[in-house]
């Protein structure tokens, strides 16, 4: 029994690329059906084009780093530091250290620049605010906790890759505006080293457990924040 036009239009609107034999036959059963099918496919092409938003650069590479955070993977990485004076302003691409870490990043400086350019700015525009409870929940997976004073100013928190495995990306709402912090549980840095790239400055901080990078428009305003993070980002009891 052949399909009527009304039923055909319904199927066409629901699944225009259906390979059902009866439907395919109906597509060529009359000029009216053919025209309807042709128009539907033209609309479908536009719909497919409209929905195919490009993926952000680095998306797949970022996903691939997740599997490198396995315990056996992170244990193999050893820091190899050759030379660098502390408190050095390092321009992008002129880092004086060679580290053996993630093959994607030759140095912690390269990682910071790469990471910040990936989603540093976009995350600061995020409208959703995480709660202090969210902050503690995320940090606790890395056996760390934040003091209430620090947790209260964290606007956004999420996991992120670091040179040595899983870390945390935070946006702190400070008096001078939003500041980005990357917490790196297993990465060693030179405490106090600063670097500048694009239109931001960063300072590296050795913590009681792990390290952090503080990134914002002006590193000279970081001193109190640096102290707050050092005093407030602490190992969970029993994990020190």
């Amino acid at each position, binding site marked *: 029994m052949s399909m009527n036009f009304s039923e055909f239009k319904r199927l066409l609107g*629901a699944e225009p690329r259906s390979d059902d034999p009866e439907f395919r036959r109906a597509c060529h059963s009359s000029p009216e059906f053919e025209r309807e099918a042709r128009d539907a496919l033209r609309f479908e092409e536009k719909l497919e084009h409209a929905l195919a938003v490009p*993926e952000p650069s680095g998306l797949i590479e970022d996903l691939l780093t997740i599997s490198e955070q396995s315990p056996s993977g992170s244990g193999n990485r050893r820091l190899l530091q050759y030379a660098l004076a502390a408190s050095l302003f390092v321009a992008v691409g002129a880092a004086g250290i060679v580290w053996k870490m993630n093959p994607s990043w030759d140095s912690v400086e390269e990682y910071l620049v790469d990471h910040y350019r990936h989603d540093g700015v976009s995350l600061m525009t995020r409208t959703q605010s995480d709660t202090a409870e969210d902050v503690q929940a995320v940090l606790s997976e890395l056996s760390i906790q934040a003091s209430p004073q620090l947790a209260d100013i964290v606007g956004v928190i*999420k996991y992120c890759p670091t040179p040595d495995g899983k870390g945390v990306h935070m946006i702190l709402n400070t008096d001078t505006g939003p500041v980005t912090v990357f917490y790196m549980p297993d990465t060693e840095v030179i405490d106090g080293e600063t670097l500048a790239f694009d239109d931001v400055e960063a300072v590296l901080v050795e913590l009681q457990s792990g390290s952090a990078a503080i990134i914002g428009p002006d590193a000279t305003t970081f001193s109190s924040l640096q102290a707050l993070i050092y005093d407030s980002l602490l190992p969970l009891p029993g994990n020190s």
Partner: protein
Amino acid sequence: MNTEAGRQAKFNQLAQSYGTDLYRYAMWICGNDALAKDLVQETYLRAWKALDRLKDPKAAKSWLITILRREFARTFERKVPKFTDLDKVVVTEESELEPDEQTEMKILRQGIMKLAPKYREPLLMQVVLGYSCKEISEALDISKSAVMTQLFRAREQLKTQMRKDGVTGNVHELF
């Protein structure tokens, strides 16, 4: 998968095969570039932790989508941000289109975002993820007939929106 290297290979295959589709799906359900990236990253983090539970490689895509939808519901559903990033996200890809085609795309995208979630989500599953009606019905736990109705209505609403917002005259000339 017994070895760590095997586990990594399996995971990397999932990232390379489905990462882009998941991002697009996430982009259209949460409506924000940065959040979509977060959502995909969280999905793969959870997938990595639970990878050993994935026994059938053919089920990988639907498994990932289930994780992503659950994560979206948990994290974002109560507060969906405004859809502000799309022009920025697609503008570089559209330079090959004629101005009127660009306008058409913009209207179509706005129409997609205006669709009620119950119409938009099946449409995304079908067009972005390549799901059949049966697969959509299983993912959304509704009947196949209901899926077909929602897909039909989604497309009809988009065509209506296109006619209303951008073009007058015969819809067949537009498409």
